């Protein structure tokens, strides 16, 4: 479903700090449909860069990224937008719409999909309740705490029942109780058939999952185990 082929990403050097940085180096792996994969690594290991490449926000410097056999490098803007709509992504920096309310932020994702009014009016409150934001529907993102913003980002990624979910540090701002709730939710969605990619540096969560773990160190894959542990 998602395939990285010898992907290297080099960011050009800035004037002040010398040489160009290779964030990912020669990364190859494949994620099959219905898998639950954790990609682990310290902060700065290149997890977010990986996420951005799957969504076509960043092109690899060398190598190729495929989504359902479509090389993202050659996909046109229309195809890229289709891919982005089919993925539910929880961004590490949330990427909320600041000028829209909590309700509208979630509804927007369904509106982009062209979903009907009735369905939106039913689904949005349901998802917000699931994630515990039903009292904040009319608030704007800046009126939410960090954890609440993160939960809104999660609600938004889940509302369309996407077949693929990418969660970039989805528990970074949550307390342990809420963290496990979220992970449990991801597991449930995966059981229902969705592909889940979890990018995290949370040892406990990964160890508890007992699923495939891809370990990134300094932009290289050093381990890829079917029932892995968090080992750095």
């Amino acid at each position, binding site marked *: 479903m998602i395939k990285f082929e010898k992907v290297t990403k080099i960011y050009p050097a800035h004037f002040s700090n010398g040489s160009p940085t290779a964030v990912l180096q020669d990364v190859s792996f494949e994620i099959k449909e219905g898998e639950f994969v954790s990609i682990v690594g310290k902060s700065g290991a290149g997890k977010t860069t990986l996420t951005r490449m799957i969504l076509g*926000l960043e092109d690899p410097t060398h190598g190729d990224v495929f989504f359902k056999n479509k090389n993202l490098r050659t996909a046109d803007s229309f195809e890229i*937008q289709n*891919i*982005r*709509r089919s993925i539910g992504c929880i961004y590490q920096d949330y990427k*909320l*719409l600041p*000028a829209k309310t909590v309700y509208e932020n979630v509804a927007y994702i369904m509106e982009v999909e*062209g979903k009907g*009014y009735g369905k939106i009016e039913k689904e949005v409150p349901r998802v917000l309740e699931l994630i515990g934001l039903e009292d904040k529907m009319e608030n704007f993102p800046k009126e939410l705490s960090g954890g609440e913003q993160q939960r809104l980002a999660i609600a938004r990624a889940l509302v369309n029942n996407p077949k693929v979910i990418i969660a970039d540090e989805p528990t970074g701002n949550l307390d342990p109780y809420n963290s496990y709730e979220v992970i449990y939710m991801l597991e449930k969605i995966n059981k229902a058939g969705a592909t889940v990619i979890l990018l995290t540096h949370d040892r406990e969560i990964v160890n508890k999952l007992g699923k495939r773990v891809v370990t990134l160190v300094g932009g290289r894959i050093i381990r890829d185990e079917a029932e892995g542990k968090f080992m750095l």
Partner: protein
Amino acid sequence: MVTNFSRIFKFAVNDFSRNKGISLAAIFVLVVTIMLVTWLFFFHGISKFLISQVQDRIDITAYFKDDAQEQDILGVKEEILKLSPDIKAVEYVSKERAMLAFNEKHKDNAVLAKALEEVGTNPFLPSLNITTNGDPVQFAEVSNVLQTANFSKFIDKVDFSQKKDTIEKVFSITSNINTFGLILGIILVILAILVVFNTIKLAVDSSKDEISTMRIVGATDWFIRGPFIIQGAIYGFIAFVICFLISAVSAYFLSPKISAVLPGFNTFDYFLSNIWILVLIQLAFGAGVGIISSFIVVRKYLDV
């Protein structure tokens, strides 16, 4: 499709009402721009009126010598008609008709009648009354014909209803004012459009991150662009309504004042008789500038 459109419209109205400050600013600069264009339009009407007024006054009367034959005079008339076929009128007035006209005009004036009687003979000269179409070129053509040796020997004197150089001066002034006014107007309008563009850019700039987030969650270009463009159209439409009311009210209330300066020119009549053109210009300008500015600015941020 219909759902999408109504959504895009809803977003536009939402954004509009949530950003009242910037919306008002955009409408204000659009009003100024449209009013400038409207003023240019009225200015054009006034200058056209002025020119027609001057043009109506450019007549030439050629008085022939007492002994000039009627066929010679008619020959001059034909020559003028041949050289300037689009001349307004060339009227031959014989000695007798001139006398009749004089008597008719002064029939109540005993002194004049008596004086005329004392002269004994008909003192009037036969003449050609020439009304040009106001074009200085035509004016020159006519005076050239009258000066050629063939004809000038019959002519006693030529009377320009206004002095030729005055007429030419008036012409050059009106045409200069026209060109100058037009150029100045166009420059001002361009400046105003730039101000509108920048105000709308300001409005869209504040949504820069929002636009890229919309791209990231998979919205199509038109789904993102639509609300901004409709907002531009709403700015334009509101500005149009305001400008239309301002023009109607000021054309109505300024009309007596302007008529006092320019007798015969009624601004409100001019407004009424050009109302559809004005609506078209104001609406096209307001909505056009609003929409095009939004389109251009949003395009810049869609590249994600």
